[in-house]
């Protein structure tokens, strides 16, 4: 039990450290958000001014913007440490690697949640969709999506941060893995926006939750090997 509590303390400490450095270097998080909002604006141009088409496509576009912004977010979480030469210390801490992973994933999920939460109103304004009525299921989808993306992203960013071609390797390795997450999140978002006429919202949220659990377990198991070198 004390073992578990110790691991939790480690995880929270790492997450808090990341959150602190993120809040202090505010411009990085801010520019990621701005980039994602810009993507949403560009989708509007790409699909033309037909408001019905934009409304129909809104859930997919929202999640694509979250994915693009999320790639930058998760890579930054390890990049800060690599730039300062602190990655070796992180790997050498005499604590369970799974606790390190949990801390990193927690920080990543928090950052993703902020990103997703702030993009929702942007989508609501740009694509004229009412999010007020369905805020609870939307929030659930964003929270579950953020956890899953961070769970995958933490493991892969830990892997790619030391590679020379990391800018391209991270999306290349990660995007196919998060494709099921994207699908489920888009379906859940679409279902909550349309008032869930088919009663499928619950099963998509369940799928998201299952994805999160699996990826957290797999990520925690492999992170130690990735940090090893």
């Amino acid at each position, binding site marked *: 039990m004390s073992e578990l509590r110790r691991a939790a303390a480690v995880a929270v400490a790492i997450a808090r450290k990341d959150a602190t450095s993120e809040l202090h270097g505010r411009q990085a998080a801010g520019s990621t958000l701005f980039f994602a909002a810009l993507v949403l604006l560009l989708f509007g141009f790409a699909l033309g001014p037909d408001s019905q088409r934009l409304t129909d496509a809104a859930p997919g576009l929202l999640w694509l913007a979250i994915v693009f912004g999320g790639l930058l977010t998760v890579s930054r979480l390890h990049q800060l440490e690599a730039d300062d030469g602190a990655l070796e210390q992180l790997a050498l801490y005499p604590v369970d690697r799974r606790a390190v992973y949990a801390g990193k994933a927690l920080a990543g999920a928090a950052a993703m949640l902020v990103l997703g939460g702030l993009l929702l109103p942007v989508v609501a304004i740009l694509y004229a969709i009412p999010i007020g009525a369905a805020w609870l299921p939307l929030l659930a989808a964003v929270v579950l999506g953020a956890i899953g993306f961070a769970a995958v992203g933490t493991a892969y960013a830990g*892997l790619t941060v030391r*590679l020379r071609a990391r800018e391209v390797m991270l999306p*290349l*390795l990660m*995007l*196919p*893995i998060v494709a099921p997450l994207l699908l489920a999140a888009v379906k859940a978002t679409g279902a909550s926006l349309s008032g869930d006429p088919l009663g499928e919202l619950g099963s998509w949220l369940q799928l998201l939750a299952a994805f999160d659990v699996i990826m957290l377990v797999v990520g925690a198991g*492999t992170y130690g090997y*990735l940090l090893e070198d």
Partner: protein
Amino acid sequence: MKTRALGFVALAAVIAAAIYGLFVVPADLNQGDAQRIMYVHVASAWLAYASFGVTALAGIGYLWRRDLRFDAVALAGAEVGVMFTAFAIWGGMMWGKPVWGVYWQWEDPRLTTTALLLALYVGYLLLRRLPDDPARRAARAAAVDIPIVHFSVLWWRGLHQGPTIGDPSKILNPSAPLLFVAALMAMVAAFTLVWWYLMIRRYELARVEWQIEEHGRLGRITAARRAVAAATSEEPAG
């Protein structure tokens, strides 16, 4: 020598199975000649999954034993698997155009998930190509590969309930004459021989590549040592 014999046998088997599937077996009543693509398509798909299974087992084996021979097997599986996956998708598209009217049928979950699987393994191979220490590269590749395989199993279990080898209901009518089944089985057997041959060859090549790499590294180390020795021995004299 044995491997070369296997290669010739495999080639002969593919030619024989192709002649049988193309000229002996009659065309399907509904799909016409397009149905013949299925013999190749199913055989490729089956070997694609066999390859990725081998890669996953070899990855686990490497993390367990830390033996680079496992890594060579993993590489062979991934590379041969990518080839067969691409071939399966290509064959499916060639079949889909006359039968479904489109190359890419978005409503077929098997096509879309197989395309994702192809992307995953292309990423895996690209990761492996980055220059690195062999042991580190092997550990990294294994750590990446295992979640991938987990996922592909999940997709195949979750999204499609069907038999492991292809989907006979789609290819053959329930009352499929034995002739069609025989053509399919012949092609699967022939492709499996080819697969064996390619796996062995790729494994051997990976071992040779590793030896060259190792040789180069040793050469650089000896050269550096010699240079240092030369410099230090000259110093007192000069």
